[in-house]
């Protein structure tokens, strides 16, 4: 028996093409990895534990879509039905083929078009527990599973609101072809199998058989001809889809697998656009989850979110405005199902734009900074919220800390504002300057009131001393009984500053600290999901009124549980929220200071 028909050619050629194309890309990316990453990859692949972990993640994320489930169950189901359904269909199809052919060595198209080749193997409908019946039952079940996802996908495109999404992604031409063919694959399979089952009066499952009988009864044309045409269509859409895959968003499927391997081997994003960045970019499925969670949506900004930015990077053209129109708050990174480092990709792009710009900081001359046990760096922004400085100095004095206020006469910027604009080289000049100043103090600890400074001190300064944000430092003072507490605030809602929360994962210290002096009320979206206050230094392209909208959106969530005070731990957040809040906005240092009994 020759299991061949010409209609399998489009599929077979497409399959060969997609394997070659994906293989070529994988090879290119791996070859382009920096030497250090290549070493990491080789070492990783020698490590079965890492491979197992990667495979587990591939199963959970690429097939089950776990993160997406967490984010949006409907969307999770939709993606899972496609990915897992199709995957199981292939597995089961192969087993079924083996059952019929008795060999593993089937042509790759054979399992796909199995029903075309085995329609003559009669299985009676009432033979419920026979093996072929079970195969047909589960194959039909999987088909329904996938088709249910397809219906959801179709509805999402038509009415994204039903999915609780404010915005869905828009697509390119190749994407349109790919998505059309992808959507057609399973309806075509359904029609081909059904018509075949209807024509022969057998061979179908619980769905395909009755549907086939019904369709045949309706169709005026000879049903064998219709069934054959459908097989051709099925093969064609598969073939076209495979050919389009490397040029469409669906490239994310094979790329994500590679990315997961990379990550498990310890490869990290670089400051420049590396092969790793390219795999990240290619792994974006454009699912649009980042759209919905972006604070900019509140300001009506809908063209520069991570998904659009990344697709621009993929197409090798990102308008400067798009690169600069982002708060760099990190929220999208938290929710991205693929875990793409969206902020780091954006900064890479910003570096390309601005890194060449000249700077001249020769006017900074080393003054004598004095000595102390603890060096307190208030930060530029904190100079605009002097109550924080007042509170911090009051607390430090009260606790009997030997401290020096390093930037009492004005701060030399920590460098992060420059870095967030892509000017790392220029930032390094400031970093070096500040490092010298800090070293001169011979302090054992650096405390700052500004999360922006805190983050860069930790990430870029390589200081040999402990670095704490004042939330951590104050908590420790309280825990060690260095400061007495008396007052108590009722109903305080805490706003996570982006750089402190998502930036340095400092979620608990401020909450614990507030717990010592106040009743902390819950906030619907907090910690990793906290909204940016809208004042972020990462944003360049938003107007004042747009920023105000973002601030108001963040405030709306903060005030849901009727707090009496909003607490935050960032001077910039305090200033931004304070502009629009109807209640007091205080830094946690102020809360602590006010709770200390007056001497």
């Amino acid at each position, binding site marked *: 028996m020759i299991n061949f028909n010409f209609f399998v050619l489009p599929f077979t050629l497409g399959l060969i093409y997609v394997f070659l194309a994906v293989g070529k890309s994988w090879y290119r990316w791996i070859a382009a990895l920096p030497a250090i990453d290549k070493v990491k990859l080789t070492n990783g692949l020698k490590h079965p534990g890492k491979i197992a972990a990667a495979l587990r993640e591939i199963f959970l994320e690429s097939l089950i879509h776990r993160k997406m489930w967490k984010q949006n169950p409907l969307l999770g189901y939709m993606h899972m039905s496609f990915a897992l359904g199709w995957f199981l269909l292939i597995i089961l199809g192969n087993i079924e083929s083996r059952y019929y052919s008795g060999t593993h060595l089937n042509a790759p198209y054979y399992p796909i078009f199995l029903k075309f080749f085995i329609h003559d193997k009669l299985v009676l409908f009432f033979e419920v527990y026979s093996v072929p019946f079970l195969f047909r039952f589960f194959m039909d079940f999987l088909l329904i599973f996938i088709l249910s996802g397809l219906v959801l996908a179709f509805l999402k495109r038509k009415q994204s609101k039903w999915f609780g999404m404010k915005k869905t992604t828009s697509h390119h031409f190749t994407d349109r072809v790919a998505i059309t063919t992808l959507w057609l694959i399973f309806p075509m399979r359904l029609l081909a199998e059904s018509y075949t089952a209807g024509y022969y009066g057998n061979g179908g499952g619980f769905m395909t058989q009755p549907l086939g009988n019904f369709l045949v009864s309706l169709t005026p044309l000879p049903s064998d001809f219709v069934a054959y045409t459908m097989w051709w269509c099925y093969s064609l859409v598969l073939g076209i889809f495979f050919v389009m895959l490397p040029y469409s968003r669906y490239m994310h499927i094979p790329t994500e697998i590679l990315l997961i391997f990379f990550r498990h081997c310890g490869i990290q994003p670089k400051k420049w656009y590396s092969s790793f960045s390219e795999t990240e970019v290619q792994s974006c499925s454009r699912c649009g989850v980042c759209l919905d969670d972006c604070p900019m949506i509140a300001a009506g900004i809908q063209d520069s979110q991570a998904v659009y930015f990344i697709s621009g990077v993929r197409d090798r053209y990102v308008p*400067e*405005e798009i690169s*600069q129109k982002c708060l760099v708050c990190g929220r999208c990174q938290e929710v991205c199902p693929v875990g793409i480092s969206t902020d780091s990709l954006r900064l890479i792009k910003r570096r390309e*734009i*601005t890194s*060449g*710009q*000249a*700077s*001249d*900081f020769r*006017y*900074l001359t080393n003054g004598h900074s004095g000595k102390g046990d603890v060096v307190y760096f208030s930060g*530029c*922004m904190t*100079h*605009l919220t002097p109550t924080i400085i007042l509170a911090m100095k009051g607390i430090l004095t009260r606790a009997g800390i030997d401290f020096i206020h390093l930037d009492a*006469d*004005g*701060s*030399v*910027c920590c460098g992060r*504002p*420059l870095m967030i*604009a892509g*000017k790392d080289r*220029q930032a390094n000049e*400031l970093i070096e300057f500040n490092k010298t100043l800090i070293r001169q103090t011979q302090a054992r600890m650096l405390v700052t009131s500004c999360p922006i400074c805190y983050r860069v001190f930790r990430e870029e300064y390589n200081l040999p001393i402990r670095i704490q944000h004042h939330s951590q430092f104050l908590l420790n003072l309280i825990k060690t009984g260095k400061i007495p507490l008396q007052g108590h605030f009722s109903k305080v809602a805490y706003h996570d500053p982006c750089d402190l929360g998502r930036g340095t994962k400092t979620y608990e210290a401020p909450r614990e600290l507030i717990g010592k002096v106040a009743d902390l009320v819950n906030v619907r979206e907090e910690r990793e999901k906290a909204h940016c206050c809208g*004042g972020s*230094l990462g944003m*360049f*392209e*938003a*107007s*004042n*009124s747009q920023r105000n909208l973002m601030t108001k959106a963040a405030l709306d969530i903060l005030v849901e549980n009727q707090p009496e005070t909003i607490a935050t731990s960032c001077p*910039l957040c305090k*200033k931004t929220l304070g502009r629009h809040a109807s209640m007091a906005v205080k830094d946690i240092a102020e809360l602590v200071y006010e709770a200390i009994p007056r001497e």
Partner: protein
Amino acid sequence: MKDFGFTVQLDHSIDYDAKDKRMMRYVLYHEPSLDWCIGCGSCTATCSAGQFTLFNIRMAHTLLRRGETEKLKQELKKCMFCGKCQLTCPRGVNLRNVLLRINRAIELFG
């Protein structure tokens, strides 16, 4: 050329019509909020760099408007980009983008 022991001094005044306005046009196109400036100087008063050197954002803006490119270039290098200026602006000018765009304009037309 003869040396008489003295030189012709450059005209100190700004000849508006002789100046290159490309940088001004570029920055205003990309950051129209710059038009809202009333020259109050609060940006300059709060400026982090201004604590250490004669850096004047209000002046930089005016230099941009008048096409005084050379001086502007030297001035802009001193900016630390900290963003305090933007927080004090009474008119809500998006100053960090202004500074970023001026730098860009310097690259493009300087």
